């Protein structure tokens, strides 16, 4: 069985907050002038990631299904005079890079994931397989505009960052991936937003993953 202990958790539930309001609200969290080019998702991911003081030897796992939706929309709107800044910030995993470049904080192992239905379990599995003693699992989404109207963007804005440790000292929750019968029926799993809600409400979960194992979160 693979396990990690959740020792710290930071959340940002911006829901339908306008990017300008997020920028104003979080201005003091960043060096002067730094927020001007940051995306809403970058601001929020940074707000949750910074208190964990990511270090070079941490493994960093980042999950986002839609990632930099606003920058993507803006870059597409900028054609034919394509914007280099929006191109750069639209590329996954820009939100984390905005934060760590701002901190000038290198990290050896950085695994950005994307995807759909199984994103949460795959990101947690990547965290559980990391060989370092501390893993930071972070993620989030930002609410789209015209892409949301077409159902291809998140309808809410949020971010999270969890410190996961191989040591149980100071743990507030425990994540496990345990063997199960290979014939066990596949559960629907959690969307990234549902995972965020479980973290926010300190709710446990347990479900059968596509790898045929049981993934569980149990709070202390």
């Amino acid at each position, binding site marked *: 069985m*693979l396990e990690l202990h959740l020792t710290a958790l930071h959340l940002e539930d911006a829901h339908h907050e306008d990017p300008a309001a997020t920028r104003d609200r979080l201005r003091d969290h960043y060096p002067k002038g730094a927020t001007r080019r940051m995306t809403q998702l970058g601001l929020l991911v940074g707000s949750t990631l910074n208190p964990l003081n990511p270090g070079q*030897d941490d493994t960093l796992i980042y999950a986002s*299904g*839609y*990632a930099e939706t606003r920058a*993507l929309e803006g*870059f*597409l*709107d900028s*054609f*034919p005079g*394509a*914007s*280099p800044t929006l*191109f*750069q910030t*639209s*590329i*996954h*995993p820009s939100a984390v*890079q905005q934060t*760590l*470049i701002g*901190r*000038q*904080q*290198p*990290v*050896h*192992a*950085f*695994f*950005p*994931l*994307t*995807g*759909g*239905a*199984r*994103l949460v379990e*795959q990101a947690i*599995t*990547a965290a559980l*397989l*990391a*060989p*370092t003693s501390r893993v930071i699992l972070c993620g989030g989404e930002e609410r789209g505009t015209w*892409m949301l109207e*077409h159902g*291809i*963007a998140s309808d809410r804005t949020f971010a999270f960052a969890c410190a996961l440790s191989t040591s149980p000292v100071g743990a507030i929750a425990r994540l496990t991936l345990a063997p199960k019968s*290979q014939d066990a029926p*596949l559960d629907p799993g959690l969307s990234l937003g549902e995972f965020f809600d479980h973290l926010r409400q300190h709710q446990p979960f347990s479900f059968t993953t*596509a*790898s*045929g*194992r049981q993934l569980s979160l149990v709070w202390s």
Partner: protein
Amino acid sequence: MAASPAVRIAACETITGFGDTAETLAALLAGRSALRPVPVLGPDGGDLVPMALIPGRSLDETSPPNWLPYLVALVATIPGDNWGQPRRPVIFTSSNFGVGSLYAYKTTGETAHLAYGTPRGCLTFLVKQLGLGPNVTTFSHACVSAHLGLIHAGRLLDAGLADDVLIISFDFLSPFVSGGFHALKILNAEFPSPYQKRPAGSIGLGDGAAFAVLTRDRGDFAIAAQALHNEMHLFTANRADGTGFAACLENLNISGGGRRLWLKGHGTGTLEAGLLEARALTERFPHSPLVSWKGGLGHTLGSCGLVELAIAIAAIRQGRAPGTVGSQPEGIVPEVAFDAFDTSAFDGVLCTSNAFGGAHAALLLTHA
């Protein structure tokens, strides 16, 4: 800190602007380039820039995407079945997925394009089209994406969570991507000449897709070590002292002593990054021949790590490695190999890739 345990490669193939693996290797050995001048925005025009599209494909966006048949044909050659089931996970890696479809929607207004435009939509479509099960993981980290898939596959195998792992990596060009690189001023009318001393740098872009089946105990090649490092210094440049490149090589936890390696670098054709990379590689592995193939293939973006791994395997099997196509003496370091060479004198090849944010990845390919 090595990122992944050693794994074996049971199968690994690619498609590029030249065709399949054999066609690609033959063309590179002959010193040919697949790069051609193409309007940067495809049918919407713009400056001519070097691109290497899969033979028969245009930069037009269609619905479904016109690259799909090429990916389907590649996937049809993957040995085995039941991919995506609990013990046979699939890892997709890409930088751009079907993002060209969003550009197509914006220019045509046809909503049919939208289904493929996001990674989520593109993957949902691909999993169904390719008949895969639900055990699918997706990494996207620009031009080191493929390396993340290979590392994660090694960890799945090492932890006993899989019997075999399939990694599929793809990036097909679109005006979205070429327009973006053109806006960054590194994609222009000049053709790339990786590792060549010249006054200005430039890159070319290429279509690329590849797969690898990794196992614990089958296949005549092994990935003996893998490593990563992310500088997080600047988005589109590296630390000027080259320490980011050196840190990744340090993390490989191997030494050149006793090993005779050749070096397949990232080598897009940019000057500064090319020089930093070449210096770091040849300081760590002096007198090892250094090549880049992006002057022939173009930069195949998120797929480049796996595309070039497939070519390296084919080259070692054939006993000849292509030189640095598109470049000519004088090189930025003496170790740059411009011509094809015999691989029989070497124990393995070190393959590297780099990406935005100062991301670095490296793997050591050896005989099993």
